[in-house]
């Protein structure tokens, strides 16, 4: 599904190489996790894949179902089925959450040449999905992320993911700022979306999220490269022993 080959990325404004040749393949139906210390390039990878400005790809490629992601605008990537759950969801005052969700759903449908979702269909779907994430009508009415707690913002990200039904979901430190209950709620939301046709890339600093979202494959990223790949046991190893020995091992 998602294929990344020797991806090299530097900052646009600075001569600083962040990704130094990342190779990664996420198959449909699988959950891959990327762990790594701060500054290893995890978030950069998520931003580059989703098309944020400020980065320059200096080598390598990234494709989604064989289509070149790096050539597309962010909205084209979204319509192609890529979704990034933001580490810091952006507040948008004056725009109701519902309006935003509906605009997003229908923009993607339009871009794919599909019929727009009717308002009754949309309302029914959003209520159903919101309920399982314990998002009430009040939260749906409020402006996007404005005045939301950390947990509410992350649940709102998962709601967007559920409504947009992407093929490939990237979760960037979705556990940051969450207490145990909120993390369980978010993880349940993600697990409900796991399916044969959908791939996940879960970026996290800590192992605890992976207790709730069980990964198939775990990668360790350090200094712009994936230095080790293994099964779920690799996450536990990190939890018990930290990153230092893995990085040393590599060196």
């Amino acid at each position, binding site marked *: 599904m998602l294929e990344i080959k020797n991806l090299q990325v530097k900052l646009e404004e600075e001569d600083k190489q962040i990704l130094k040749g990342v190779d990664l393949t996420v198959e449909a139906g699988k959950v891959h996790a990327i762990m790594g210390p701060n500054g290893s390039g995890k978030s950069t990878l998520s931003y580059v894949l*989703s*098309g*944020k*400005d400020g980065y320059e790809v200096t080598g390598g490629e990234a494709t989604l179902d064989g289509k070149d992601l790096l050539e597309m*605008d*962010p*909205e084209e*990537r*979204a*319509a192609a089925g890529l*979704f*990034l759950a*933001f580490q810091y*969801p*952006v507040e*948008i*005052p*004056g*725009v109701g959450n519902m309006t*935003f969700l509906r*605009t*997003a*759903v229908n*923009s*993607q449908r339009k*871009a794919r040449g599909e019929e727009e979702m009717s308002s009754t269909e949309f309302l029914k779907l959003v209520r159903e999905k919101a309920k399982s994430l314990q998002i009430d009508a009040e939260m749906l009415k409020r*402006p996007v992320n404005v005045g939301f707690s950390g947990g509410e913002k992350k649940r709102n990200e998962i709601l*967007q993911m559920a409504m*947009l039904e992407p093929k490939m979901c990237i979760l960037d430190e979705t556990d940051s700022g969450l207490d145990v209950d909120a993390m369980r709620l978010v993880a349940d939301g993600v697990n409900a979306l796991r399916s044969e046709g959908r791939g996940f890339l879960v970026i996290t600093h800590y192992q605890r999220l992976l207790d709730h979202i069980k990964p198939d494959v775990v990668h360790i990223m350090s200094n712009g490269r994936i230095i080790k790949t293994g099964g779920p046991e690799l996450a536990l190893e990190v939890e018990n022993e930290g990153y230092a020995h893995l990085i040393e091992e590599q060196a």
Partner: protein
Amino acid sequence: MALPQPKIDATEARLATLSMPETGWSVPARKAALARLRAMGLPGARDEYWKFTRPHSLNAPEPAPAAVFDADEGPFFGNVDRLKIVFVDGVFDPEASDALELEGVEFARLSDGADIHWAQDLYGKLEEAGQSPVERPLAALNTAFASDGLLMRVTGKVEKPISLVYYHRSETSDATLHHVVKVEEGADVTILENGPAAARFNKVMEVDVADRGGFHHVRAQGRDHERQAATHIFARLGTESTFKTFTLTANGVMTRNECVVELTGDDAVAHVAGACMGDGDFHHDDTVFITHDAVNCESRQVFKKVLRNGATGVFQGKILVKPGAQQTDGYQISQSLLLDGDSQFLAKPELEIYADDVACSHGSTSGAIDEEGLFYLRARGLPRGAAEDLLTIAFIAEAVQEIEDERLQDEIVARVEGWLARRRG
């Protein structure tokens, strides 16, 4: 101090084209206003409060011709149950208007000439009070020469908004209207205004809100691009009264909106807000002066300007806290969203405080579309244009939310969406 000769000449040239009624209750007030105007002269480019806005087109003896604009949208506030009152090029149109009957309001027209005692005590009085410390010559001109206007005495809580609709049908019309609103103790009214009114429009609204009274005002000036307008609101607020005004200005080569509010009773609240959308040959000026002269009053000024293709926005906002006006809560924000590098925003926030137990804050910013927000929306699948439009709506939201009635908020947002959509083609 004697006025400079060019100023005298400009003033007399304008006055030569105008005439005032010879009889009626308003004559003494008009003559007094004319004397005020002659003493100060019409605005000049060197006047402190006209540095950012060139007054010549508002001063000229004749208005610049303005092509009539036929709107392709439905009626503004058409979804709201309202009492509609229509003026065409400044002339009352009884055929197009509803009967001037509404529970809780006594109506009269300035041009009726009937002896309206309450109006006689107010007409030109708030305007006169508002001439100090900053002169507002175009308002004095208006008091002297207004051809018509509504006199509304509000005696109860009025259910329906009063909707003043202005049409511009003549390319050379020069309209001068002067409305007076007296909100009696505990009464409450909403006044809506929309439409371009004339090729050149000079309007004054004097608003006297008695204790515990409420005045709500939502105005939409727009889409008629070539028209010019200078408007003034003068308000005086009693104890525990509320005054809220919001203006949307979309298009217009010249708009100067002044709002002068004096909080004279304790615990009064004044909110003055506006949003404007300017594209190209557009000059929009909000000049606000709020005087706190009582204890524990609150005032808010919230102004947002969206500017592109060389449009200019001006904000001159002042909070004056008089001695003894303790526990004043004053807030002022003026912000511009510059959609390109050609547009400009000129802001002059002022605070003048003579009391020691007050909280006053002000801020002014200019910026481009927020890149983080833009990426967030695009990452959810919104095309760049749609994402920018949504963020523009978000930018003006703080001002729009100053409108209490959500239906009216929605009408304003819908118009802004239309304005943005037309520019996306």
